[in-house]
């Protein structure tokens, strides 16, 4: 078999070689850091997902080596494959940042913003997205659309009001079962996720729709209102499960298991699907073989605090703008607080100014 050809693609002035057929988003994910466009609907494990949320729009300023014309419109990076010599602008394009801000605003106008009572708060992709790319306020002055809460199955609650219609759960339900029982009713801004004639879903893997949901629309009824995400500690564990791989992440507080989810990678995507039995019924420490603390991705508020094994995102600002940014004042020259050589995640308990005193390390 001949080797797959490699394409050279430049994203925000950083060049990378990727196999032909890679999408722009995946090429950007190989680089990582700020140059990766956010994605609310794309899910690499789900066939056919992506292209809907429009947060991953990028500008293609040079189509390819052969045809250097720029693409006329912004393109969805999750569904556009790279060409050899393609040049993509993400955070270096004002057009992209403006459009993305617009998309975030649109996503939020019908979102209830009930984060204080939402179980997803703290690991919600929409929170991250609006924090990173949104405006500080809204210009929407009308009633938001609301729906009644609905139970789909014994363990899953659908709170349609929070849904951003990314279709991830539809693809999940469709690709894990043979029956088309889970889908979208109505259209436009009154579209809603529903199951066939309100029937409950009894598939063994249906619990995974909770994990793929980027917001708090699908929640685990065994975990609802039990605890906040940032009070629990994620621990990787496994068990010998007859149905699935049994590789899970336990969310514990003390010795108590509050929640079981699948393990997620640094893009917030499930690594391996887990079955309902592991997810909803095995809530005792004795059910599991604990492997150790989980590596936490950026899509969790825990990564902001004191937790070992926090995954740090690479910083590329010097390569994106071609030079090191000129600092008007390096705060570390005049203050010892938050010295960069002190790893906040290594500090036990809340940080104190004493932790940053130079003589303390020695």
């Amino acid at each position: 078999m001949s080797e797959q050809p490699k394409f050279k693609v430049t994203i925000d002035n950083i060049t990378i070689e990727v196999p032909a057929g890679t999408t722009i988003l995946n090429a950007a994910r190989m680089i990582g850091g700020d140059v990766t466009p956010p994605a609310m609907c794309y899910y690499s494990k789900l066939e056919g997902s992506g292209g809907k949320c429009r947060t991953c729009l990028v500008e293609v300023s040079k189509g390819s080596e052969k045809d250097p014309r720029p693409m006329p419109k912004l393109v969805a990076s999750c569904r556009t494959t790279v060409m050899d010599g393609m040049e993509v602008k993400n955070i270096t394009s004002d057009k992209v940042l403006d459009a993305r801000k617009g998309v975030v605003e649109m996503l939020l106008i019908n979102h209830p913003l009930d984060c204080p009572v939402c179980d997803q708060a703290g690991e919600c992709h929409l929170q991250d997205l609006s924090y990173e790319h949104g405006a500080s306020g809204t210009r929407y002055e009308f009633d938001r659309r609301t729906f009644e809460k609905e139970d789909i199955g014994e363990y899953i609650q659908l709170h349609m009001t929070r849904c951003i219609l990314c279709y991830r759960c539809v693809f999940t339900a469709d690709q894990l079962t043979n029956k088309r029982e889970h889908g979208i009713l109505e259209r436009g801004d009154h579209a809603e996720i529903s199951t066939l004639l309100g029937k409950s879903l009894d598939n063994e893997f249906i619990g995974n729709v909770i994990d793929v949901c980027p917001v708090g629309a699908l929640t685990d009824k065994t975990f609802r209102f039990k605890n906040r995400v940032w009070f629990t500690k994620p621990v990787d564990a496994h068990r010998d499960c007859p149905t699935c791989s049994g590789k899970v992440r336990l969310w514990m507080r003390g010795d108590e298991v509050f929640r079981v989810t699948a393990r997620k990678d640094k893009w917030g995507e499930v690594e391996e699907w887990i079955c309902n039995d592991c997810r909803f019924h095995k809530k005792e420490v004795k059910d599991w073989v604990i492997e150790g603390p989980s590596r936490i991705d950026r899509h969790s508020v825990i990564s902001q605090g004191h937790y070992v094994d926090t995954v740090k995102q690479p910083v590329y600002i010097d390569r994106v703008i071609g030079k090191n940014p000129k600092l008007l004042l390096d705060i570390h020259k005049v203050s010892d607080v938050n010295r960069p050589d002190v790893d906040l995640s290594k500090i036990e308990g809340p940080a104190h100014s004493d932790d940053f005193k130079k003589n303390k390390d020695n």
Partner: protein
Amino acid sequence: MKLLLEHAHVEGIRYYDAYRKNGGYRAVEKAFKMTPDEIVEEVKKSGLRGRGGAGFPTGMKWSFLAKPEGIPRHLVCNADESEPGTFKDRYLMEFIPHLLIEGLIVSSFALGSNATYIYIRGEYAWIVDILEQAITEAKNNGWLGKNILNSGFDCEIYVQRGAGAYICGEETALIESLEGKRGNPRIKPPFPAIQGLWMRPTVVNNVETLAAVVPILNMGGEAYSKIGVGRSTGTKLLSVCGNVKKPGIYEIDMTQSVEEFIFSDEYCGGIANGKKLKACIPGGSSVPILPANLLLKTAKGETRYMNYESLSDGGFATGSMMGSGGFIVFDEDQCVVRHTMTLARFYNHESCGQCSPCREGTGWMYKILKNIEYGKGKMSDIDLLWDIQRKIEGNTICPLGDAAAWPVAAAIRHFRDEFEWHVLNPEESQKRNFGLAHYADPIHVPAVG
């Protein structure tokens, strides 16, 4: 010049006998003496442009069709005519159904489609029966079915009803719907010419486009291309509605000026009830509205003609589009704000809800327009509307987002002071719901008495 509607008024033209007597199915006879490639070449030569709205050259579209060995190809006729203001396809299918069937047989032969589909709008319930009767008649007379005219070519035509969604007029949404799925547009690429219906190469064409293949075959592509002006070749059906004396279907050869089309007795016959022309949407609800002065003359002061190039002269800043030919005329008493609100409500209702800017933005625009229309608007709402439409346009999967954004953009661009008047005079704007009259055309003042 009439090509499609030449025999429209012959009695019984809806039925096979009268249609055949008036030169029907000659194009099929001629086509089966040619090779498929020659027919495609003929259509290319004719310069025929898609009549559904975008105006893409049909011959080009046909030549893009992938032809892999052993995989069937399909031709799909897009009869999901739901654009507000457009009803030309309905007339063709209702009164001269055999013209479409004949065009479909020729096109199917040219493209190698053994199973051809007519995806018809669900609301055209009675036309389904008319088409099915025409198909049966054609079949009984040997124009359809197995081994047509001993050529060895088989073709069946199926009629499929839509379920009442505007979005299914978008070709990839139509294909999804035809496959029995939810009518959400697909993300392109792959284009339908490569992977369309059931992942097979597919061509989707408008009813009028396929009907126009018949005169092209009859008279030859060369002769057809001589009709019309420049790249706007052939004849175009226009469905005229609004405040004109004679609304209805007109077939024009695209050499008329807009002024002639609206005011001459041969066509619309002027504005009804002795009023003045205020504005017009020349190509179906999705295209930008134009005020009277820009409609009759381009920004450079040249006369505007009824063809693809001239109507889009000046881009969206001072021009519009030929679109699907839904010609909507407004007189001085019509309120542009109210009209824009109605359109925004339509697009809000018809957005499929797949991509976020269109799903949320259309509803937002409608709510703001409703506020302005009912005297609850603020000055800043107008700028906000402008910003929302800018963020929808071009950022969506399918052109419905653009179609929702363009009318709002054009209304604000050309009629901004009417919006402001609504904001400043909330009570008066509700009492007399017709906006400002000063845009009305100063030249064509009706004779007093």
